[in-house]
């Protein structure tokens, strides 16, 4: 009688399966899940930290999910949450935190492990300033700032001193013009070597917002962060300076040579603005590149500014549901944000330790590549984003309106400010 046999087999299988889960649940081992997006240097560093942590805490096992590419990371989190699975500790871009707090996805860091005094005393100012809705929601291992990369070989070939990078914005333009080469007329499409290519989709929207704008005497937002203020005379001047590389100076474009970042890594661009995380990319993809790093050029007002940002670890609602897992998660979080973890991180990823003690280490400050980034931490600004990707899109579109649509820089900024203001207003409207 095959029917009954079939059902009997099914019943046995189901019984076995449930036995298995009971056996797992009875185990003393506490298992917590940690998620970050796939970036090889970070994955390797975190694997090392997890191995150290597990050796110190034999009762805790950390499952490391690092298979998700950057482009899908938010999708996967969004898909996992309703299914009741997902991370206990998750690494998010700092600019995403308000959206995740808004959704109730993160719980505040426990006061006893991460008190305000502790954070203010030990962490980089941009972390200390990340209080939102009266609490700290996440804490990083490392922080980054922007600096200027220059290709020494291109400088030398163009007759510039390969050891003295541009110090101010005028020098920057002059060096970009001197290093651009064309095959034929002076046209973006005929460029064979770029002086500088502005790429708003990468880091240049930060460069404009937090650096150029301030150097021209403007400010991106009002002090409470709720009003867009870059659509000003100063904003126009700063934005025109940036768009001119493509519309006037014709020194490069993100549309050619495989994109601005790759073009620099491949040795086709003289000047590039990027974060310290790019050091690892260069080491992996083009270790021969003869480049230097310097602090961002000073502006017309002689001031130095840079944009600071970080990927930061938060505790999820899911971990908070189970006291044992929450305890393990907090322990893990303390471990991976310690100065020692920061030191391990800077050596393998190139990002600077978030704990000020480790970041201002003399070896780091003296390092010709890391030093300029470390110096930048003192004058860095981390934008408060309500929707990082939408706010970035606003400036990408403004830039495209100027370079592709022939729009005036001031008009493009006015349009951008109106759209961004609406984003900010709707975020706060939902919260009040």
């Amino acid at each position: 009688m095959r029917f009954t046999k079939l059902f009997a087999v099914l019943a046995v299988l189901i019984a076995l399966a449930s036995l298995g889960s009971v056996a797992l649940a009875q185990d003393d081992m506490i298992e917590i899940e940690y998620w970050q997006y796939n970036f090889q240097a970070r994955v390797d560093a975190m694997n090392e930290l997890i191995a150290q942590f597990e050796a110190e805490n034999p009762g805790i096992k950390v499952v490391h999910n690092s298979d998700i590419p950057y482009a899908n990371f938010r999708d996967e989190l969004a898909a996992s949450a309703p299914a009741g699975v997902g991370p206990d500790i998750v690494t998010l871009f700092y600019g995403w935190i308000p959206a995740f707090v808004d959704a109730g996805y993160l719980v505040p860091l426990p006061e006893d492990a991460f008190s305000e005094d502790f954070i203010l005393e030990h962490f980089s100012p941009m972390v200390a300033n990340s209080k939102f809705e009266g609490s700290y929601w996440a804490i990083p291992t490392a922080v980054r700032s922007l600096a200027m990369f220059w290709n020494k070989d291109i400088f030398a070939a163009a007759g510039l001193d390969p050891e003295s990078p541009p110090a101010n914005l005028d020098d920057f333009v002059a060096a970009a013009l001197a290093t651009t080469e064309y095959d034929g007329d002076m046209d973006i499409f005929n460029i064979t070597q770029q002086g500088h290519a502005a790429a708003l989709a990468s880091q240049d929207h930060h460069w404009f917002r937090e650096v150029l704008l301030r150097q021209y005497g403007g400010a991106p937002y009002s002090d409470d962060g709720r009003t867009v203020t870059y659509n000003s005379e100063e904003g126009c001047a700063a934005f025109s300076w940036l768009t001119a590389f493509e519309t006037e100076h014709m020194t490069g474009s993100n549309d050619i040579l495989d994109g601005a970042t790759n073009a620099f890594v491949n040795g086709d661009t003289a000047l590039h603005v990027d974060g310290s995380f790019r050091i690892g990319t260069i080491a992996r993809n083009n270790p021969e590149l003869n480049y230097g790093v310097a602090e961002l050029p000073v502006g017309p007002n002689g001031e130095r500014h840079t944009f600071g940002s970080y990927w930061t670890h938060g505790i999820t609602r899911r971990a908070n549901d189970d006291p044992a897992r929450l305890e393990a998660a907090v322990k893990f979080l303390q471990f991976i944000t310690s100065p020692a973890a920061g030191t391990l991180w800077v050596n393998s990823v190139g990002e600077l330790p978030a704990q000020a003690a480790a970041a201002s280490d003399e070896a780091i400050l003296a390092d010709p590549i890391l030093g300029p980034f470390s110096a930048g931490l003192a004058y860095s600004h981390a934008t408060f984003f309500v929707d990082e990707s939408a706010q970035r899109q606003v400036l990408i579109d403004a830039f495209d309106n100027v370079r592709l649509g022939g729009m005036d820089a001031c008009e493009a900024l006015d349009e951008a400010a109106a759209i961004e203001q609406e984003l900010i207003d709707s975020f706060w409207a939902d919260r009040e």
Partner: protein
Amino acid sequence: MIDNPDKSNRANADKGFRWTLARRKVVWAYIFLAIPIIFFAYIRIYPALFAFQMSLHDYNPLAAEQPYVGLENYEKLLDELNKRKSPTKAAFQNTANYLLLGVPIQLCLALMISLMLNEIRFMSTFYRIMFFLPFVTSTIAIAWVFRMLYQPRFGLINVMLQLVSLPQQPFLNSPKQALPSVLSLVIWQGMGFAVIIFLAGLKQIPRTYYEAAEVDGASRWHTFRFITLPLLNPTIVFLLVLQTISFLRMFAPVLAMTEQGRGGPLDATTTVVLRVYREAFTSFNMGYASSLTVVLFVFILIITIIQLRVTARRIN
């Protein structure tokens, strides 16, 4: 499963219900059919219906609770469409452009090609395969190849333009040229399918009609206009409906061909489905994204009904 009827008949002999061979066959057939049906209902129909419900909520997938907001998402959609410029408005306009340009061009080209393929005898299978091949190739792979072809300076098309001393074109980097650039890929890729269906339709037309027309001295145009076209009508309706739906649902080529899958530059290539994806998964506005899918669903439904009514006339 093949069973021994004698053995099980004996085992069931003392019960009221008898597992005859025929009964068992039917039961097994239902069991096997139930698996895909349950799967389909759970994976396709339930989520589709769930989208209607989601569109009435402020649905954030990360949140523990999803508050009911009535028609707020639809009001927001109307607001967005009434703006001078908005990504949602661009998505609807572009989708309409893809559809109104894409379907007629694709079907006309496919019909011309299938008429020619229908004539040739030498190497006809080879030609058919060549036209059908793009359809069975991965869209993402094709999109990336096209992306390379369109590249400035080193892309094949621009290299050829330079060879004949024509100015280079920005293609995907230009707000004006990006949509036609994406569209040509979609037309080319989907055409093989239309060609095969047209060929099947042409084969259905009895030879005798053409012979009779020839005897009557009808011109080639008249033969096409009064025999081929009317008799192909069911095929044309079928393709029109199918291709319309596929153009309305366009997503993958735009995602793969534009910078960071954003549907740019300046929303020039974005589509309604890409908008749905970005709203749902990058901005976590799943409720609003669902309201977009519901509107798209209604559009598809209306267009399909109209097309069936208008074009499916009886042939005399």
